[in-house]
């Protein structure tokens, strides 16, 4: 087993991996950019080294600097987390060349799966069902028009190197195609340095369901159940759950077998995820394979009782999978909410800044994977994911109620978060009925926002208004952190009130 692991990431996932290492008696090394000196992963690690300025391209994406830290610190393996270098085959290769174990698949498997077009070619050979379209980049808009004619509109244009919705365009009619292709290609070039764009038939209102797989380096591959990831916005997942409300054990077995076939076709090792689109007849199509630990891995951990990060590390250290497919059982239900620094009142704009108050939920069935703390300033340079709140219970309904309870306990001030969005989703009748597809969230947000969250206490809103008025007065008397007249020009949000001043004011009222 490794004695020391370098974690080439930040935020909640770096903390999550640190915890696994500590549990396994492995010491940890982290890297950080200039704006992350006070970040939680730096505070919690055994060792930490600076690797450059805030922009990711100058720090968390600098392979040379990260490998240099690995060498200097004597780390034997690197866990890349998700995002940043996690799906970069060049980095995996550079690790191998430097004699450091990359905790993930081989560069060869990553290259095959990293390009969506080459993944499609490979899967075509392996006989995996996938969405009709091209398995190569489009040479011209004329070719695109021909393929679109053949598979039928609407079609989806996708960047071969893509992810996160970048370089993706939905095209409804022929005359939109040329300009959509040009903009998708230029966006793909800008985002991934690769302008290859291919075309697929667009499946209307699909579900997005993915299957977790795990493969050791001795030829054993297993699947660990599906995750329902249909609740998305701007092609970013917002809430995930396991199991999916529509997948029964027969469908799960079939999806699992296809996912294992996909992994084996790519000679895949370590943890990976096979994504499927599922149409209204519950037919599923291979979409892509993510060659990394996913953000939403906790819901699989809770429903299988396995620790995926422990297993990733053990596999990378050369161990065999400690269980067989027949040992895998799905038990209970888990739902994950991705807590983002986003402003729900302002079209979910990013909202970095200083966290002035943080009250966090706990209690039965609640798991919180978080990278934030009170007093920390969320930098503007990275992804807005702050934390993940996961509820686990014996069935879906109980998991929903448990999460509603936990969200009621969750409070973040100083920055805006999307906590209220989850209160809306969990209270929504369609969500509760499991009627989901990738258009669900946009439809929900188009509806008027109910003023009171479903979990608000029973007294009507008018009564609560009075409570708010009394509270405002009591705060002014007992905790005058801010001047009474607020014109936005007084003390900043982060100002700490003087205890002397507070005491004096309280005394003055006696």
């Amino acid at each position: 087993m490794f004695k020391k692991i370098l974690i080439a990431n930040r935020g909640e996932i770096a903390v999550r991996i640190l915890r696994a290492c500590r549990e396994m008696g492995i010491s940890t090394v982290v890297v950080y950019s200039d704006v992350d000196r006070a970040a939680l992963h730096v505070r919690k690690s055994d060792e930490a080294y600076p690797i450059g300025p805030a922009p990711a391209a100058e720090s968390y994406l600098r392979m040379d600097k990260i490998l240099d830290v690995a060498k200097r610190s004597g780390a034997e393996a690197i866990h890349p987390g998700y995002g940043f270098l996690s799906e970069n085959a060049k980095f995996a290769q550079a690790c191998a060349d430097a004699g450091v174990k990359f905790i993930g698949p081989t560069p060869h498997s990553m290259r095959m799966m990293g390009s969506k077009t080459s993944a499609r070619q490979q899967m075509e050979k392996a006989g995996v069902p996938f969405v009709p379209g091209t398995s190569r980049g489009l040479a011209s808009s004329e070719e695109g028009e021909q393929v679109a004619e053949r598979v039928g509109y609407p079609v989806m244009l996708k960047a071969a190197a893509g992810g996160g919705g970048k370089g993706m365009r939905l095209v409804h009619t022929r005359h939109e195609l040329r300009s959509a292709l040009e903009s998708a290609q230029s966006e793909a070039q800008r985002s991934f340095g690769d302008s290859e764009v291919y075309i697929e038939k667009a499946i209307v209102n699909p579900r997005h369901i993915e299957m977790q797989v795990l493969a050791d380096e001795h030829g054993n591959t297993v699947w660990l159940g599906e995750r329902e990831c249909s609740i998305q916005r701007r092609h970013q997942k917002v809430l995930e759950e396991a199991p999916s409300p529509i997948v029964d054990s027969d469908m799960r077995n079939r999806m699992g077998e296809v996912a294992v076939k996909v992994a084996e076709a790519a000679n895949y090792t370590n943890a990976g995820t096979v994504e499927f689109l599922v149409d209204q007849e519950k037919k599923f199509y291979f979409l892509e394979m993510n060659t990394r630990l996913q953000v939403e891995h906790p819901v699989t951990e809770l429903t299988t009782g396995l620790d995926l990060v422990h297993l990733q590390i053990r596999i990378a250290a050369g161990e065999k999978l400690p269980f067989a497919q027949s040992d895998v059982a799905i038990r209970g239900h888990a739902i994950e909410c991705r807590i983002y620094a986003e402003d729900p009142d302002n079209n979910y704009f990013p909202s970095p800044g200083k966290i002035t108050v943080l009250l966090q939920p706990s209690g039965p069935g609640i798991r919180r994977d978080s990278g934030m703390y009170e007093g920390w300033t969320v930098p503007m340079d990275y992804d807005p994911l702050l934390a993940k709140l996961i509820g686990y219970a014996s069935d879906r309904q109980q998991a929903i109620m448990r999460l509603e309870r936990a969200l009621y306990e969750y409070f973040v001030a100083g920055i805006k978060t999307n906590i209220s969005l989850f209160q809306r989703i969990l209270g929504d009748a369609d969500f509760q009925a499991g009627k989901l597809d990738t258009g669900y969230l946009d439809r929900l947000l188009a509806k008027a926002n109910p003023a009171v969250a479903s979990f608000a206490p029973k007294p009507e809103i008018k009564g609560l208004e009075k409570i708010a008025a009394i509270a405002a007065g009591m705060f002014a008397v007992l905790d005058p952190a801010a001047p009474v007249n607020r014109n936005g020009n007084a003390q900043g949000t982060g100002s700490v009130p003087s205890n002397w001043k507070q005491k004096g004011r309280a005394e003055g009222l006696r």
Partner: protein
Amino acid sequence: MIYEIIVGGKPHRLELEKAAGGWECRLDGQPVHIDAVIPRRDVLSLLVDGHSYEIKREQTATDLHMWVGSTRFAVALHDPRSLRARQKDAGDEKGPRKILAPMPGRVVRLLVRENSEVEAGQGIVVVEAMKMQNEIKSPKKGVVKKISATPGAAVNPGDVLAIVE
């Protein structure tokens, strides 16, 4: 202590007086006995007739909110003894309107020039934060009087990006 408190647009008058075992309070003339404790900064535990409420206070550069459970109320508070009138942002369509940065970020580019005519909702400046580019739009139809944002510059919430008249 007497406060004028506006909650969700509606004014209330609150009188507070320390009493045995809590506070005697009059809200819009009605007497209420309350007990209040601040267990930590920005959190208030309030007992009213045996009902327990936990209220959180959220302050930003421009707003004050009270969260009663998961319900948020916009609140404005004055002490009538201070006669300073509150400056309200002009909410009407006339006169110059400042376009403010809603969050910290970096100005990516300008979409209009000074003195150009803009429609309500037209993009004025693009600000980037957390890998997302956001168009900051004009709140009204008019003429761009001034652009203070410069591409590449960092901005903080509340900074003036442009003025439309």
